[in-house]
């Protein structure tokens, strides 16, 4: 069953007098449990594609369906609610809330969803334990290393029990040991919980772990390879 389905999506940006096509008639499906890397040179449309399927950007034309629901028809408030309940985000610069502790950052999403305190407590500790940070619960982001912050970001992305996780160059700011550690965690969650992960990346170490590699160039899909 397809978790994500895009039908002929295009995204046009106006720059000065020029129209720039960031996405050009992209149609693609993602199934549950895939561990996908989207690769391509800078400006190929990777981030625009992730933003479009994540409901952060709307396509100029075409449709995006998540679990057969067309999100391109939702208004901005509906989209915010949709993202809260269906999508986990991991950003390149971690983007944790600096004034909250690791545990509070993870709990934050669940709080927005209206989960009870007991559920929030239990799940946030479980998730931080699963990313190896059960001893850092009460530390704020500025007291954690880059790798640890990104692991908190992964735990936060999973806190809402999303249908899939979108990660925009999640390893770009990490050293090799932190990258390897993060990928181990995400691979384990992918296998254990059948969580769908979609990465945009330049990082060969991420590409090596992916079971599907999609190459974008000039807003078009150049190749779509399943790796066994």
């Amino acid at each position: 069953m397809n978790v994500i389905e895009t039908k002929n999506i295009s995204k046009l940006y106006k720059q000065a007098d020029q129209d720039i096509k960031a996405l050009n008639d992209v149609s693609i499906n993602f199934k549950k449990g895939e561990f996908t890397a989207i690769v391509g040179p800078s400006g190929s449309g990777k981030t625009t594609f992730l933003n479009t399927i994540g409901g952060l950007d709307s396509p100029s034309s075409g449709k995006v369906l998540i679990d057969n629901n067309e999100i391109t028809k939702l208004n901005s408030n509906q989209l915010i609610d949709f993202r809260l309940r269906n999508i986990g985000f991991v950003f390149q610069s971690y983007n944790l809330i600096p004034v909250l502790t690791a545990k509070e950052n993870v709990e934050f999403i669940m709080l927005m969803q209206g989960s009870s305190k007991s559920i929030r407590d239990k799940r946030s500790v479980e998730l931080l334990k699963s990313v190896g940070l059960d001893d850092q619960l009460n530390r704020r982001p500025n007291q954690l290393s880059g790798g640890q912050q990104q692991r908190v970001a992964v735990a936060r992305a999973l806190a809402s029990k999303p249908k899939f996780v979108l990660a925009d160059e999640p390893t770009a700011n990490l050293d090799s040991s932190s990258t390897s550690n993060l990928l181990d965690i995400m691979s384990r969650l992918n296998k254990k919980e059948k969580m769908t992960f979609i990465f945009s990346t330049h990082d060969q170490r991420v590409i090596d772990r992916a079971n599907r590699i999609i190459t974008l160039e000039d807003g078009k899909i150049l190749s779509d390879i399943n790796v066994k």
Partner: protein
Amino acid sequence: MVTIIKIAWRNVWRNKLRSLIVITSMVLGLWSGLFAVAMSRGINEQRVKSAIDTYLHHVQIHNPSFEYNLDINSVIEDPTCVLEEIENNSLVKAFSSRIIISVMASTAHGTEGVKIIGIESEKETSFSEISQNIVKGNYFSKTKSKPVIIGQKLADNLKLDIKKKLSVTFVDDNGDIQRIKFKVEGIFNTANSIFDGGNIFVKKEDLIDLFKNKYATHEIAILCNNIDDSNILKENLAGLFPKNKVETWKDISPELGSVQEIMVWFFLIFMSIILLALSFGIVNIMLMAVLERKRELGMLMSVGLNKTKVFLMILFETIFISCISLPLGILLSYLMISYYGQVGIDLSIVSKGLEAFGMKSMVYTDLPIDYYFRITILTLFVTLISSLFPARRALKLDPAEAIRSL
């Protein structure tokens, strides 16, 4: 909501120095504004009190035509009945009847147009400050023959001193020129130099011979037990003696009477200007906070924080800043206003200028409690308004773009 409040509170302290600068500026703004208003109120209270104690008193009775021309013949109708009624009125604390004539006062050094006021010297001490304001000589106690008490300013103008002779010339009730010589017994100095230069006091009995009626009176000045009873007493006496004109101190000197009402508006306008200036500071710091945290706000919106909550977060941050500043500013103001309300501020360095406006050089700050409530409401209102622009700016952020921003 608790988490939004928690984030907002912690956000206030993310940049401690910046928040402290805004908090300090708000505290100082509130303190300086409230203290300035309290000082203005103190000055005006002094001015009103000084005017009432020296020459206005609470209620005055005259012949209706007296105030226009100070005509010597414009005496009070039925003065004995009026005085009897006043004596028995429970609202009255003290009173005195006076003869007032417009005269030319002369010495070898010059001539000045003044009002000579013939008073019942004993009665006058109970409610007029003149006897307490004697700076040289005595108050009608030693000189037996036609003593006069003059103001310091007149003494300076006419180069007069104690025991010197002062000659006054005026037109009597027959239209004849009269001249009387008085001997200076005392020199007074009130907070009002205009009053000091234009009024001299003599014993009523030294003038009464000028009149056929030995009860002739131009003015009856009354002090009530309570200043708020002035209007009631006025209505009361005006009803009983319609041929005379009864006026309260506010009727006689409306500019003093309306000072308190004017002060309320002065307070609101003055504080609004200060708060308006402070609001720009708040807008500036909150806008900086929003623009600095673009990526964070973008992330919050991306992961599901709706616009209402983003708006509330910015709003709470602004409110927290004013919730810290407001009590500190008010407490500081209250302590200083209370302290200087007790010990006073000595402005004797500019006493000459103040006296020209009828003010004393010691100012006691005064600010009623309701002013503190008003400033609290005004500050919270301005804070709320100030938070709208930064909050609106935050709402306009596009999450996808904001996340990519530096």
